[in-house]
């Protein structure tokens, strides 16, 4: 089944964090991007889960790439991804119960995240272990960076600060109720805030990429 690809480790890494950055260039993984970016902590947790699942699923798929039958490969990919997503979900429930509740169904929904099955098909099924693992890490890192950036804009405009824990709160814009001048935008916590911010980010990236080309 497998057609060996000639992707290098460097190409895999640069692809994940810039030229093929999942959300902004491939337009993959938009559902969790819009849903969980109400806070930086939630975005970071989702990103770390996706990195874990991408690395593990790419490793397993790459290891068995010579054994894959074309008509069964999607089933194997889905099975592999579902296992690691379930482990990530159980880990959060056991060790980060508050964050697990906050993210709700979006952790189990990583199973149907297009980025992961896309990398299994486009990279791991055609490349060696090292390239596949680096590709998984880089794609996950690119996804996490976008999530954290989008979440930081939304959280700051919605609350004036970034909350990492009850004792670690980074105040960027002092809200009126705390004696400052900033009136928080509640709409930034709603879907409209996510759509508008993501749209502006896409426009900025297209502008930069357009200028380069």
């Amino acid at each position, binding site marked *: 089944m497998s057609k060996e690809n000639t992707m290098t480790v460097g190409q895999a890494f640069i692809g994940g964090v810039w030229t093929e950055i999942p959300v902004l260039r491939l337009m993959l993984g938009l559902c969790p991007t819009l849903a969980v970016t*109400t806070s930086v902590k939630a975005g970071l947790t989702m990103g770390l889960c996706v990195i874990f699942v991408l690395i593990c699923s790419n490793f397993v798929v790459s290891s*068995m790439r010579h*054994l*894959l*039958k074309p*008509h*069964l490969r999607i*089933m*194997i990919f889905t*099975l*592999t991804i579902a*296992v690691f997503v*379930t*482990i990530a979900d*159980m*880990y959060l*429930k*056991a*060790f980060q*119960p508050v964050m697990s*509740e906050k993210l*709700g169904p979006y952790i189990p929904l990583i199973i149907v995240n297009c980025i992961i099955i896309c990398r299994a098909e486009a990279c791991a099924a055609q490349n060696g272990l090292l390239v596949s693992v680096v590709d998984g890490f880089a794609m996950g890192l690119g996804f996490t960076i976008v999530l954290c950036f989008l979440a930081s804009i939304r959280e700051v405009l*919605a609350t004036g600060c970034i909350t990492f824990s009850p004792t670690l709160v980074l105040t960027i814009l002092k809200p009126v109720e705390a004696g400052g001048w900033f009136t928080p935008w*509640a*709409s930034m*916590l*709603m879907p409209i805030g996510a759509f508008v911010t993501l749209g502006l980010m896409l426009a900025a990236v297209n502008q930069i990429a357009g200028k380069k080309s």
Partner: protein
Amino acid sequence: MSNLKLFFRESWLLLVSSVLFGGLLALTDAAWRPRIQQNEINKFSNLARTLLPAAETFEHLADPIQIPDDKGRPMLVDVRRGLDASGACAGWAFVCEGSGFADKIKLVVCVDAKFEILTGFQVLASNETPGFGDKITIQNGFYQAQYKGAPAERLTLHKAGDSKLIDSEIIAITGATVTSQAVVDILNAYVTPIKEQLRQKGFLQ
């Protein structure tokens, strides 16, 4: 026979993977399940203790409570009795859920020992609209405060009124009438039937 051979030749990798991955999940579950269950118990106890401060422990009832769901089908409810330091009943706590505006709303509700007065509710899970419906989660906010001391009977929702007056009339959150109504409906669906069941089983006089 040749069909069977073909089946195994084509699908052996899927079968072997399924067995291996199933084993991996079973091991992970065995390792983390006790911790996950303890987290759930802790969360329930912490929320219930804020509503029933006198209760030190919450014990399950030996006889489960069964009430009708919104379609009239029987549904089991995990009602727990809060016990104070002397072992006397300090109140009752249970988890109830129903449809909200965006998703299911799950609440911990506490009632006094005689099941006559609500001591309040806390939100276990909800995905209501930020800035509007999610105000039901604000501890000691005006909406939650209306339930502390309200009678454990049928509640009604009103769009305007004095929210500081504690009675069976609940004043809605502005801009979140659906969520406010959902909480009232959830309590109405659980409180009275549970009270009836407890009375029938001899837990209440």
